[in-house]
């Protein structure tokens, strides 16, 4: 499946922390839309290689890009109203809160199987396959057979 226009835009300026080009056997471009992500971690659970990881930190900036009608958006609107200045940056999330966490993506672990895309309930993960030749061979990690869903 080709990337959406927005996905292409993100992919062109791949940030490396939450999106990236897979180095796995199934070459694949994984793009995450942080604004749609609710941080539920279903992609983390689905990922067979551990390329998706739930962060202990959360960047409030992620709230402010969320759609206004979502819970995160509503919280962002409320926060805007009380803001004296811009948020000062990522903070460590209380241990048991599961939904306010960033999701980190490690491209060098990704096998390109697409399990995360199927697992994501909000469509915050997109992926499109890229020819294997395009993938930087040097950073390729072997993936055990059958690891891809």
């Amino acid at each position, binding site marked *: 499946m080709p990337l959406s226009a927005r996905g292409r835009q993100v992919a062109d300026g791949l940030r490396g922390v939450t999106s990236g080009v897979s180095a796995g056997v199934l070459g694949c471009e994984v793009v995450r839309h942080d604004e*749609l992500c*609710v*941080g*539920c971690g*279903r992609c983390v659970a689905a990922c067979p290689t551990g390329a998706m990881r739930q962060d202990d930190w959360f960047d*409030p900036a992620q709230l402010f890009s969320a759609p206004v009608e*979502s*819970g*995160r958006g*509503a*919280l962002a609107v*409320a*926060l805007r*109203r*009380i*803001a*004296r*200045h*811009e*948020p*000062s*940056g990522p*903070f460590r*999330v*209380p*241990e*048991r*809160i*599961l*939904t*306010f966490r960033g999701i980190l993506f490690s491209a060098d672990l990704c096998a390109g199987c697409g399990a995360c895309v*199927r697992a*994501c*309930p*909000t*469509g*915050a993960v997109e992926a499109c396959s890229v020819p294997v030749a395009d993938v930087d061979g040097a950073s390729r990690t072997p993936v055990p057979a059958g690891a891809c869903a």
Partner: protein
Amino acid sequence: MRVTAACEAGAIPPRDRTEEAAPAGDAVRALLCECAGTMAGNIDFDVLEQELSRGAVTVERRAMWCGREAKGRLVELLDLGDAAGRVLLVGCSSDFAARRLQGLTDRGLHLEAADIREGCSWVHGDARDTVTDKALRIAQAAIRFPARRQRRVALRPSADRVAVVGAGVAGTQAAVELARMGHPVELLERRPFIGGRATAIGAVFPTGDCGPCLPATAAQSGVRKCLYRNVAVDHPNLRIRRRTTVQSVTGRAGDLTLQVRSLPEMVGSACIDCGLCEAACPVPGPGGRATAIAGEVYDGRVLRSIDLDSCTFCGACAEVCPVDAIDLTPEAALEELHVGAVVIATGCEPAPGNLVSHLGYGRPHVMTQVELAEKLDSWRELSWLGRAPARHLVMIQCAGSRDERRLPYCSRLCCMIAIKHAIRLRELFREMRVTICFQELRTPGARDETWYLAARRAGVEFVRGSPATVQIDGDGRPVIDVEDIGAAELRRLRPDLVVLSTGLVPTEESAAVARLLGAPLDGDGFVAQLDAKNRTTETRADGVFVCGSASGPKTVAESITDAAAAAARVHDYLTAGGRQDVCPVTVDAARCVGCAACVGVCPFGALALVDRTAVSPRPANVLPDAQVAAVAVDACRACGICAASCPELAITHALDDDTLLSRLRMLAGGVEGPVVGFTCAECATATFNLSGQRRDRYPERVRLIELPCLGRISALHLVEAARLGAAGVFLAGCVEGRCHYQRGDSSAAEQVALATELVTQMGRTMPIEQWHLCAVDHTGIGHRLQDFCDRVDETQAAAGRKRELSPVGER
């Protein structure tokens, strides 16, 4: 009334429920109560009446709404039914009103309450305008922003049958009680005989006679009867299934299907106990028993049973049986039982030997108290022959117990068991020296202390000191080095026999059955009680009960009491129709993305992901096959933790976000720097009401908002409080670990941590505290609130000074 997504999807069918009709229209009738003039000092009722009358509100003002005349009017309103509209008492707290007008509420008068008495007038000073404004806001918040009407759900388990798992003393007694109450009971026992551990240990304390007897029924002579001759066990409602284990459990609370596997009995009821089979059996049985077919001494009901692991099915027993009672052909049978409730009575067992290997267990001359108990009866013969099995016997208390690396807890019974055995040994063998090494002896209560004193009189030697190891010398005799704390000296004991008082651990079966039934275990592996003080015979799984040692080591006496208590609870559960007045939450399928955050936080497992129906709406970016969360109406306790945790605001609680935020805006207004307090409807509200009834004063700027549970609070509400200029916020809930909804307390703590971080990031200062209160704290509420206000002001002043010094970054 909205139908829950679950019912819509048809995934989790609701139980039979009777719904109350919704009130007609939006008409509101405010019953303004002056409480016999006790509020006249600081509330201007004319203003209140005038202001409340605006809009579609009918105000009926009286000096006292709980007086006799007023009650006549309330009866009229009751008769009007829904035509009366929403009836709202503006006066005392709902708790107080409910008690004063109980007769009417019992007859069906649905009365909401806005507390302007112990929540306002009685706790404030003479500032008439401010107090009147606050009272008006309290009334308006309740009138204009109602919570969704509580739906009455009468839950009725659909099966009257009860399964009791485990036929020890507790299980058998619970089964007998339930059968006598009229419930069909299935008593499931893994072993071929009933009576459990009590049958193996001979005499028990505190009585000193044997264990396996149950209370006699009124129809029998005497006060107790042995299991095998107690006709209570023969009740027609009671079916005993021996050699039966639970394989799987399906269904929902109140209507469970247990699949049970029964091994064949093989020896039928024709058996006349002649014993010819035992003589003919060529195969040795388990545990040193001579034959694979044997009689169970204590369970006189099963005359002979065959150990299926050792039996070779040679047929020798069947051949010699004169009444053809033995049939070796049947196979294990699977059967399904439909039950409304399950009682877990799987008991406990002695700690495994590896926990006491450091004390020499496994070597000759070292045994446990349980092994000693089994030997005591056969030793009696030795005493007649005048031969003691040992000259010196040492008992070591807390063997492997109260030790972080082994058993961390105290099993409570071991001290009494040791004392009981020590006395018995001294009675049987006058020359035997019996020493008990202990850390602390736990013989609480007058009766148990008597046993201790009796042991001293009987010549039992007590040494305070706990040996670290038991060594074995060259002759294979135990050597114990113990520091005698009482005599302040190191002593070396060279006993002939060492008896270890090991702790008691839950049976393996306990954990397996509890897992199948969805009942969680506590930290020590016993079945967790719903409430350690008030609901000790219930588990956290609805319709699953626990009694006896399955929830922690108990004496035979305690087990019998516990079993009767559990039976009464089960009867109540099966007949009273379970819970009532439950208002479940609803899931908006158009917003739910199916992230399962709610599934993880619900303490009652009431939420699950189900497939979407083709017609149900879904959020724009969600995949067509994405699942949706669904509420199981009968499991939901309406705490609101899910609604607070939903990242998409897809879950609507009876007290929905709009109502809660509107109330917050209404109450936080009209005052400079309000201090907002969220209280849970349970312990915290009780504390504040009691405090208010004592007229314990606190500042008017404290504004209280009642939540069903603190779990309802989300970071959004706290940020909104900051927007409204709240100087500080406190959350008052139950005592730590005593949340009525298990996790509401910790859920609130997380939301507070999150909100504090976010609010601080935005450059605001708003202290948020979480308090753990219970009703005895009511004497200090006024002081606590005043103190909090002072602290908040200090923090705000300090923050203000800091901002003046560094205005960079200001907007």
